């Protein structure tokens, strides 16, 4: 068995182990761990677009919301039909939740395709703005769908998210992104990042690579959204606005774009930071933004990018 697959298997076993003992862990710590896991999924998947492929998307929260809403809708509207009035056994519930999550992920991937095909023709600033625009449009649409709660948000989502699902999907996300980037096919992402014109010249279809990266990232954002919705049990359209997208982008930048390990560390740090800084919570965003500016001025390759002396632009 190749090494990455072993790692994946090992992580799944660990996830199962942790969830088995989860009733002995302090609920507050479990909550924080769940938050960290969801943020890792978001950051690692966005890293595929913003880091490895070198495109700048500011609409990740939009895809997250698509996943969150559709997975929640599946759970709310279909669960009574499939699971019966008593809610079914643990296994039935798990299988159903997996289905709901995949529905959310696939719808987000579909949204990613619809958004990506036209907008990935643009570059840099323009791409950032168009993705931001799409993110906002998605938000406005959810605000207007009364069936999904409209502006008030969707309540009463069953709390299916357990630590097992979060850790398992963290493992799957890291596995997929790492294997994709390190495969022969995946070199194309890096080539697109390094020099698009040169990549085109050697016959790579860079547009295709960008779309693949974008759709994959959107899929995992959708999964993360589904996990988030079934964790918080209530979602509102404004929870997935521009600020949320920026938060994810900051994780990717802080970790060093195109460096999965760094991005994971950054996601952990940035989820823990608000918990630790709770006494001075009102300064949190000021610290964030100062950090961002200082980082770009002093260490643009990211905080956790340890390839010394090999600063990528």
């Amino acid at each position: 068995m190749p090494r990455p697959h072993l790692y994946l298997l090992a992580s799944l076993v660990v996830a199962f182990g942790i969830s088995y003992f989860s009733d002995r862990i302090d609920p507050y710590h479990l909550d924080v761990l769940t938050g960290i896991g969801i943020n890792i999924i978001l950051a690692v998947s966005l890293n595929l677009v913003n880091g490895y492929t070198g495109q700048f998307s500011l609409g990740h929260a939009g895809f997250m919301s698509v996943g969150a809403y559709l997975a929640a809708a599946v759970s709310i509207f279909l669960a009574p039909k499939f699971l019966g009035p008593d809610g079914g056994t643990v296994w039935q519930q798990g299988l159903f939740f997996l289905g709901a999550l995949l529905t959310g992920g696939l719808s987000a991937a579909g949204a990613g395709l619809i958004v990506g095909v036209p907008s990935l023709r643009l570059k840099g600033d323009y791409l950032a703005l168009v993705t931001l625009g799409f993110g906002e449009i998605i938000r406005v649409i959810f605000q207007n769908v009364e069936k999904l709660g409209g502006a008030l948000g969707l309540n009463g989502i069953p709390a299916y998210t357990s630590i097992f699902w979060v850790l398992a999907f963290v493992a799957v996300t890291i596995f997929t992104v790492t294997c994709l980037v390190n495969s022969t096919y995946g070199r194309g992402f890096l080539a697109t990042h390094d020099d698009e014109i040169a990549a085109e010249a050697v016959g790579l279809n860079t547009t295709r690579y960008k779309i693949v990266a974008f759709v994959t990232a959107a899929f995992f954002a959708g999964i993360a959204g589904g996990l988030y919705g079934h964790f918080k049990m209530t979602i509102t359209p404004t929870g997935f606005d521009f600020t949320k997208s920026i938060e994810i982008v900051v994780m990717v930048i802080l970790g060093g774009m195109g460096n999965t390990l760094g991005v994971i560390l950054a996601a952990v740090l940035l989820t823990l930071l608000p918990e630790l800084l709770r006494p001075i919570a009102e300064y949190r965003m000021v610290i964030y933004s100062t950090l961002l500016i200082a980082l770009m001025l002093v260490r643009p390759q990211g905080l956790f990018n340890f390839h010394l002396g090999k600063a990528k632009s």
Partner: protein
Amino acid sequence: MTEFLQQLLNGLSLGAIYALIALGYTMVYGVLRFINFAHSDVFMVGAFIGYYLGHHVPESTVWGGLLVLTAAMIGCALLGMLIERLVYRPLRSAPTLNVLITAIGVSLLLEYTGQLVFGAAPRTFPPIFPSANFHLGPLTISSNQLLVISVTLILLFALRFIVMRTKIGTAMRAVSLNPRAASLVGINNDFVISFTFALGSAMAAAGGILYALNYPSIDPLMGVMPGLKAFVAAILGGIGNIPGAALGGLLLGTVETFVGGSEWSTYKDAIAFAILIVILLFRPAGLLGKFTVEKV
């Protein structure tokens, strides 16, 4: 018909404010080729300067209002120059993406420092200009709307004059065309860029005060939406193009007001972004912009 004209009027006065903000985006893009995300927060700071000074001048007088307007414009011009000097200048040769991220950082810093300093709760903007409603047949024109349109027109012509007729304006156009060649003929690029930021930020401050007069509730995050929309206006008209920014702003304001008055009113906020996407896909150079081919 009356309703149409009334909406058109409301739309134009909203569009005039978008135009003022869009000018700042367009000018900075013209000389530095990057989106100054922090511009929308300079707009917010302008409104807050107006709020604090507004309590120290006699209410509802023309000279008091103009005094506040001028002071806010000067304050924001200084702020713009400060931001440029401290943050953007060290990054002048950095990749676009880094500058973009930094600009987002500056924007967040201004917003959240604003929340700390001014408080997050919305405030009511004092009526610094005298207000009255004029009736033109069945139409109602408020003095604030007239003020917005006239201030915008005056500033637009002043800007046009500076850019086309003065020495510094010529230098700005030279830097925008080719910064290296400009410095070769002895133009001080740093000064020109600084001046551009000052000018753009002053326009944003004027926009902020006029916006606050028409929608008299201000808070530290008030700049986000108008800022994004003004940016769309700048792209719509062709980024880097001053008349284009004005045209884009007026068009966007009008369209948005009409959508707001129809049964689609809840989709009002999405319209600007839909326009943005359509324009970038079909005519990325904007309505008045020139199309340039990317060179290797």
